[in-house]
C-alpha cells in the first residue's frame, strides 16, 4: 500500500526524496512536493532517513536536495534506487582530489 509509506521531498526540483520509515523493496511510493508528483517503484530496501532517487540520473550528474547540489552521481542511478555514499560523491573539501 503506497499511501502508508511516509516520505518527504524538500523542493520540487530535487532528484531525491527521503524515507520517513523503512521502505521494503518492490514497494510503490507516491512522492508529492508542491505541484510535482512522482510515482516511484522502490527497487531495494531504503532505511529510515535514507534517500531514494525520484528520477533517473546519469553518471556525473548533479544530485539535488533542498533545491541545492549535494554531490555528483558516481554511476547511473535509476528512479527507486537507494542514493548514498556508494553512488553519490561530495565535491567539497576534497583535498584528496588536488594534484600534488
Amino acid at each position, binding site marked *: 500500500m503506497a499511501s502508508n509509506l511516509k516520505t518527504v521531498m*524538500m523542493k520540487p526540483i530535487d532528484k531525491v526524496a*527521503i524515507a520517513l520509515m523503512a521502505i521494503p523493496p518492490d514497494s510503490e511510493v507516491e512522492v508529492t512536493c508542491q505541484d510535482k508528483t512522482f510515482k516511484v517503484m522502490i527497487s531495494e530496501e531504503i532505511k*529510515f*532517513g535514507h534517500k531514494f532517487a525520484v528520477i533517473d540520473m546519469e553518471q556525473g550528474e548533479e544530485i539535488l536536495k533542498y533545491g541545492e547540489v549535494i554531490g555528483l552521481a558516481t554511476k547511473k542511478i535509476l528512479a527507486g534506487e537507494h542514493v548514498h555514499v556508494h553512488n553519490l560523491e*561530495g*565535491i*567539497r573539501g*576534497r*583535498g584528496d582530489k588536488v594534484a600534488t
Partner: protein
Amino acid sequence: MPLDQNLTFMGYRRPDGKVGVRNHVLILPTITCATQAAHQITQLVHGTVSFIHQHGCAQVGVDYEQTFRTYVGMGLNPNVYGVVVLGLGCETHQARSVAGEIAKSGKPVEVISIQDSGGTLMAIAEGSKAAARMVQEASAQMREVCYFSELTIGTECGGSDACSGISANPAVGVVSDMIVEAGGTAILAETTELIGAEHLLAKRATNDRVAKRAFEIIDMMEKRAILMGVDIRTGNPSPGNIEGGLSSLEEKSLGASAKSGTSPLTEIVDYAQTPTQKGLVWMDTPGHDIEQLTGMAAGGAQVVLFTSGRGTPTGSPIVPVIKISTNTPIFNKMSENIDMNAGTIIDGEESVDEVGKRIFQEIGQVSSGKLTKAEILKQHDFGIWRIGPTF
C-alpha cells in the same frame, strides 16, 4: 505577528549590565597543570564548576591568542558570577593576564598560582577559600526581570541524521528568527558544516563585507583539508551521520544551515569572540561539537540549542544546553540526555513552527532557572579550537 519586544525572564544582572541565566563560580585553570587542582576545588566547594583541558603552554601567535580569548571569554560569560583563576606560574598563558581581562567586567576575580602557593595542596586550600567566599555572595544575589533582547542564543547540531535538516534544524531556525525579532542575538556556527551552503548565507548578509567574509572563512576551512591532502569526508560527515542517511558534507551543511532561519546575517565573528551586533551572527568555528560549544560559550552565549539525530550527552560547565532530538525513536531511547523532541514533525504530529514556539518557551523557562538534562548530569564539556601546533 511581530513578537513583543518586552518578553522577559528572570536572570542575574552583572556589574557590566549584562545578564546571566546562571550564577556559577568558575574555577578557571589556565594551564593543563592546574586542571586537577581546579577539579579538587569543585569537589570541596558547593556551587563551583570547572573543566579539564590540555592547553595553556608552549603556544604561540594566533593560536596563543585564540586560547587566551577562550579563557577570558569563559570568565566573562554572564552566567558566571565570579572567577577563581588557577595557574601554575611558569606557563605562556599567565593566569594573572587572564584574570586582569576578566576583572575589567567588574565581577569578582581571584588569582591563585600553584608555584606561588607552594604546591598543589596549598593552592587547593587558597582557591577553595576564595571560591567559598564567592559562592556565598553569589547565593545572596536575587534573580530579577531581564529581557529576551539581552539574550545571546547559540545554535548547534551534533550527531546529525537525515531528519536534522527536516525537523529539529528548521525548528531551531524558527527560534533563531524569533530571538532576532525579540531584539536578541542568535549565533550560527560550525563553519565546516556550512561548506556548500555559504552562497545562501552570503545572500542574506547585511553588507558586502559580511558577504565577502562568509566566502573567506569557508575557503579557509576548505583549504585546511586540501593542505592536509585529505578528503574532509574521512572526518565529516562522520560514520554515524552516514549510517543515518547523510551522504556528503554538502548535504549535511544544507541541513545544518536551516538552524539560521531566515534573518539577515549581520556579522561574522572569530572563534570565542563576543558579537558586537544584534541579530543573526555567524561565529567561525569547526564542526567539532565541543569546540564549537566552547567557542559560543566564550563568545557570551547564555543558552545553547543543540539538535541531534543520533543522540549526544553534550553540555557545558557554564551554559545550559537544551538538546532537541530530530526523531522520536532517539528521544525515547536517550530521554535522560535529550530535553525536547522535534521528531513530532517527522511523525506528522506538529508543524515546524509549533516546535519552534515550544523551544522558544523552553528558553524562557531555562533562562529563569529550569535545569537542562546536561546540567543535571554534570556534563561539563570543554574543548578549545587549536589553530597552531604546540611547541
